[in-house]
């Protein structure tokens, strides 16, 4: 949103200027209410991310809302079967604007290894997705990466879908490099 400019002397009695949209986006990105649409094993990783060790509350996104009308972010966590498609679509439609969607894990992103008649090959086939998190399941770190990507998108007002880039455990990456192995960028 740009710098907050403090004008008029000391901080206690000053005022600041900013763009209204930028302020609104700033407020939105730090108070995301989430709707966890957890259908499968990825739900466990979601719980881990929400629990104190990874502590999603640091990002102002700790409050899950089980009513779509009260939430901003729809987390599609797990495999979406064809039979569940109408439910997911309806949940999405019930959410109030502005709303964002995160595809959590490989199944929600592209169907994963469920390449058959039961499974929707990615929830983006029926609802627009903002952030994809690959992984089966993704690590909580990847989920936090996704949340930060989403916050960046909200601040910029950008609706292009993005994918969380892969990351290595730094210690393992160092050892791999020391052996002359392939280094991931």
């Amino acid at each position, binding site marked *: 949103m740009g710098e907050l400019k403090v004008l008029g002397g000391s901080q206690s009695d000053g005022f600041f200027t900013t763009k209204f949209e930028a302020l609104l986006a700033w407020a939105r990105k730090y108070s995301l209410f989430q709707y966890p649409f957890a259908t499968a094993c990825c739900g466990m990783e979601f719980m881990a991310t929400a629990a104190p060790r990874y502590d999603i509350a640091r990002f102002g996104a700790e409050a899950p809302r089980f009513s779509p009308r009260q939430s901003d972010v729809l987390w599609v966590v797990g495999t979406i079967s064809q039979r569940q*498609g109408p439910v997911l679509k309806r949940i999405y439609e019930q959410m109030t604007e502005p709303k964002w969607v995160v595809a959590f894990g490989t199944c929600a992103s*592209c169907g994963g*290894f469920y390449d058959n*008649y*039961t499974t929707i090959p990615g929830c983006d086939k*029926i609802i627009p997705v903002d952030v994809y998190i*690959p992984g089966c399941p993704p690590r909580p770190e990847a989920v936090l990466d996704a949340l930060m990507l989403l916050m960046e998108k909200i601040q910029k007002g950008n609706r292009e879908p993005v994918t969380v880039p*892969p990351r290595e455990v730094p210690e*393992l990456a160092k050892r791999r490099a020391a052996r002359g192995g392939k280094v991931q960028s």
Partner: protein
Amino acid sequence: MSAKVVARLESQFGDRILAKSAFRGDEEVTIAPKDWVEVATFLRDDPACAMDHFGDLTAVDWPLREREGQPRFDLVLYVRSTEKRHRIRVKTKVRDGEQPKTLTTVWAGANWAEREIWDMFGIRFDGHKDMRRILLYEEFEGHPLRKDYPIDRAQPLVEYRDVENVTKLPPFGIEEGQPFTRIDWEERLAGHAEPVSPSIAVQTGVRRTLSDSEIAEAAAARVAQEPAADEPSENAS
């Protein structure tokens, strides 16, 4: 383990036991569809059998048997006795369109199993009170576990979004956290008149099954290709 049950069935039904076999202590008998309920009732009520636990009822599709004039489906029943501690597998062969009698009158647990068979294989049960699909939706056409169900046919309930490249949005690569790739069915089924499952291709001789020694050779080659496993696990660091 349940040889006594087989002996009991043979003494009771004689010739009506069409075949019997055993694999590592698991006995199996084959009967005709007309004896289906009678044998089941006997298994439940006879004090020497006392099959009080309905394990499972399922079906197997053998589409190529139809060419030889044989019934297409196997119905497979697993029951056991908690009291006598034995179990048995009972099979019968049914034709496409034939309606075997329901077992819900013998074991109430057969209800959902028979609904699943209807859903997956399209075998209806005569006398079943609630013959609806159980896993799939009413709009679904066909029965997906029949081997002639097209392997790449999906029947979406919600129309896919009208967006450019909607089918080209991510599948992810190996580097992006998906250590497996999707199967290219077009390539796999090339040369087939109709899209059928690979198992049919093997049965019809279009595709060869590998022998045990070939499988072992391929596995050895894979191991040889892999780099030495000196990378420590994440937990170790």
